[in-house]
C-alpha cells in the first residue's frame, strides 16, 4: 500500500514540475524578448494579450502551423531524433533538483524533489553531457555546412567547458561530502553559501554554465552572423520549437543548479526558518518561495548578461576555457581543500 502512495506522490510531483517548466519556459521566452527590448530602449512585444502576455502562446501556435521541412541531404532518422534528445535531456534533468524541504501531508513525509537520489549531481552532469549529442547530431545530420560547423563548435565548446564545470562542482562536493542535492543544500545553511566560501569556483561554474547552455557570450554553435542558424539552420516547425524550448529549459536547469550548489537552494538568506516558529506548511512555503526567487534572479541574470556582453571569437573561447577557467577551477579545488584542512581538522 505504502509504495503506491509514494508512486502517487512522485507522479503528482512530476506533473507539477513539467507543467511549471513548460509555463516558465514560455514566459522565459517572453521575458527574453521584453528584456532585450528594454535594454535597447524599446517596448518589446505588447500586442497579444495584456502587455503581450499571450505572445509565447502565439509564437508556439505559429510554429505548429509551419511546414516541417527536412532537407534531401539530411539523414532523416537522426535529423528527427536530435530534437527529441534535446527535449528529453532538458526536461529530465530537473528531476533531482530540490525545490523545497520535506513536507508532511496526511502523515506522510514528502520531500519536495522528484527523485531524491544520492548521486543526483552525477546524474545532472551525465545528462548534460548527453545533451551535447543532441546538438552535434542535429548539426551533422542536417546535411548542411552551416549546421555541421555549428555542431562541431558546440561539441568542442561543451567538452572544454565541462571539464572546468566538473572541477568547480568538485569543490562543492568536497565541502558537503555528498552527491545528494538535498545534502548539499542542507550543509550550506542560512548564510554559509558556497558562492561566498569559494567565489572562484562560483565564477568558473557560472561561466561554464553559460557555455553549456549556449547562452550569449558563448553562443558560437548558433552564431547568427556567421552560421545562419547554426545547428538548427535546417530545422523548422515543431522540431525547431523543440530545440528552442530545450535551450530555455536548459537555462532554467542551469539556474536551478547554480542556486542549489552555490546559493543555498531553498534556504532563506540570513534567517533560520525553524527557529522563528512559523506553522510548518508556512515555513515550507516560505522556503519554496525563497528557492523560486533565487532561480528567477538567476534567470534574469542569464538574460541580462545575454543582452550586455558580445560574443567571443572562437579562439578566445577556447583560450578562456583551457587556459583560464580550467586552471582557476583547479585553484579553487586547492582553496577548498585548504579550507577543509584548516577548519575541519
Amino acid at each position, binding site marked *: 500500500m505504502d509504495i503506491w502512495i509514494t508512486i502517487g506522490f512522485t507522479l503528482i510531483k512530476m506533473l507539477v514540475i513539467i507543467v511549471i517548466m513548460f509555463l516558465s519556459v514560455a514566459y522565459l521566452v517572453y521575458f527574453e524578448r521584453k528584456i532585450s527590448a*528594454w*535594454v535597447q*530602449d524599446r*517596448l518589446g512585444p505588447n500586442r497579444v494579450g495584456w502587455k503581450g502576455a499571450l505572445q509565447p502562446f502565439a509564437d508556439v501556435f505559429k510554429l505548429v502551423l509551419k511546414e516541417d521541412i527536412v532537407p534531401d541531404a539530411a539523414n532523416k532518422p537522426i535529423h528527427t531524433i536530435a530534437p527529441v534528445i534535446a527535449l528529453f535531456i532538458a526536461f529530465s534533468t530537473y528531476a533531482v533538483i530540490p525545490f523545497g524541504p520535506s513536507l508532511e501531508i496526511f502523515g506522510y513525509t514528502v520531500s519536495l524533489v522528484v527523485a531524491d537520489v544520492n548521486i543526483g549531481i552525477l546524474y545532472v552532469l551525465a545528462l548534460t553531457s548527453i545533451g551535447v549529442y543532441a546538438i552535434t547530431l542535429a548539426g551533422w545530420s542536417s546535411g548542411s555546412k552551416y549546421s555541421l560547423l555549428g555542431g562541431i563548435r558546440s561539441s568542442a565548446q561543451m567538452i572544454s567547458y565541462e571539464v572546468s564545470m566538473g572541477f568547480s562542482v568538485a569543490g562543492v562536493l568536497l565541502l558537503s561530502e555528498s552527491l545528494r542535492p538535498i545534502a548539499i543544500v542542507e550543509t550550506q545553511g542560512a548564510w554559509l553559501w558556497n558562492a561566498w566560501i569559494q567565489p572562484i569556483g562560483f*565564477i568558473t561554474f557560472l561561466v561554464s554554465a553559460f557555455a553549456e547552455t549556449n547562452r550569449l557570450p558563448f553562443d558560437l554553435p548558433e552564431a547568427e552572423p556567421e552560421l545562419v542558424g547554426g545547428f538548427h539552420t535546417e530545422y523548422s516547425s515543431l522540431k525547431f520549437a523543440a530545440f528552442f524550448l530545450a535551450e530555455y529549459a536548459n537555462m532554467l536547469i542551469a539556474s536551478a543548479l547554480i542556486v542549489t550548489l552555490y546559493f543555498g537552494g531553498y534556504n532563506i538568506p540570513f534567517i533560520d526558518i525553524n527557529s522563528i516558529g512559523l506553522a510548518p506548511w508556512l515555513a515550507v512555503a516560505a522556503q519554496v518561495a525563497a528557492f523560486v526567487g533565487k532561480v528567477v534572479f538567476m534567470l534574469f541574470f542569464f538574460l541580462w548578461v545575454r*543582452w*550586455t*556582453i558580445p560574443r567571443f571569437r572562437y579562439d578566445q573561447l577556447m583560450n578562456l576555457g583551457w587556459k583560464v577557467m580550467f586552471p582557476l577551477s583547479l585553484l579553487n579545488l586547492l582553496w577548498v581543500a585548504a579550507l577543509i584542512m584548516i577548519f575541519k581538522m
Partner: protein
Amino acid sequence: MSVKKRAKDLTLLERIYIPEIIKGLALTLKTMFRPKYTMEYPEEKFVPPPSYRGRPVLVLDENNEERCVACGLCSRVCPSLAIDIQASETEREKERYPERFEINMLRCIFCGLCEEVCPEEAIVMSKDYEMAFSNRENAIFGKDKLLVPVSQLKDRIEFLRSYK
C-alpha cells in the same frame, strides 16, 4: 574619441575582465529603466514638423475658392508625371481654374517640386502620410480628395514663405 587602447596597455583590473563586465551590466540595467522612445503608432500618431513633405494637396483659400489657376507648371515639372490637369475658364477674377486635377499617388515621389514651382501657392505638401489603397483606381486622387482648406496648411505655408 579617446585614443584606442591596445591589449598591452590594459591594466591588470581591465585584464581580469570581470570589473568591466560589471560596468557593462550596470549600464544595461540603467538602460532597462529609462523611458522608451517607441511611439505606439496606430494609437499614438506622429505629428510631422512643418518641413515634412507628405501628400500634395490643393489649397482652398479663405473664401472657399481654389487658388489653382491651372497654369500647368506643376504637371510640367513633375518628374514622375503624376499630375494631370484639364484647364477651363471661369467668370471669376482669376479667369482660369482646373476642371480636372488628378494626382496619381502611385507615381508621386513626394519630391515637392510641384509645390516649389507653383506661382499661386496653390499646391503644397501636407502632413498627411497615411495613404493606403486597395486598388489602383483608388490611388488616383481627384479634386474631391485634393482640396484642403488653407486653415489646415498654415504652418507649411509659413515654412515655405520663410525658407523657400
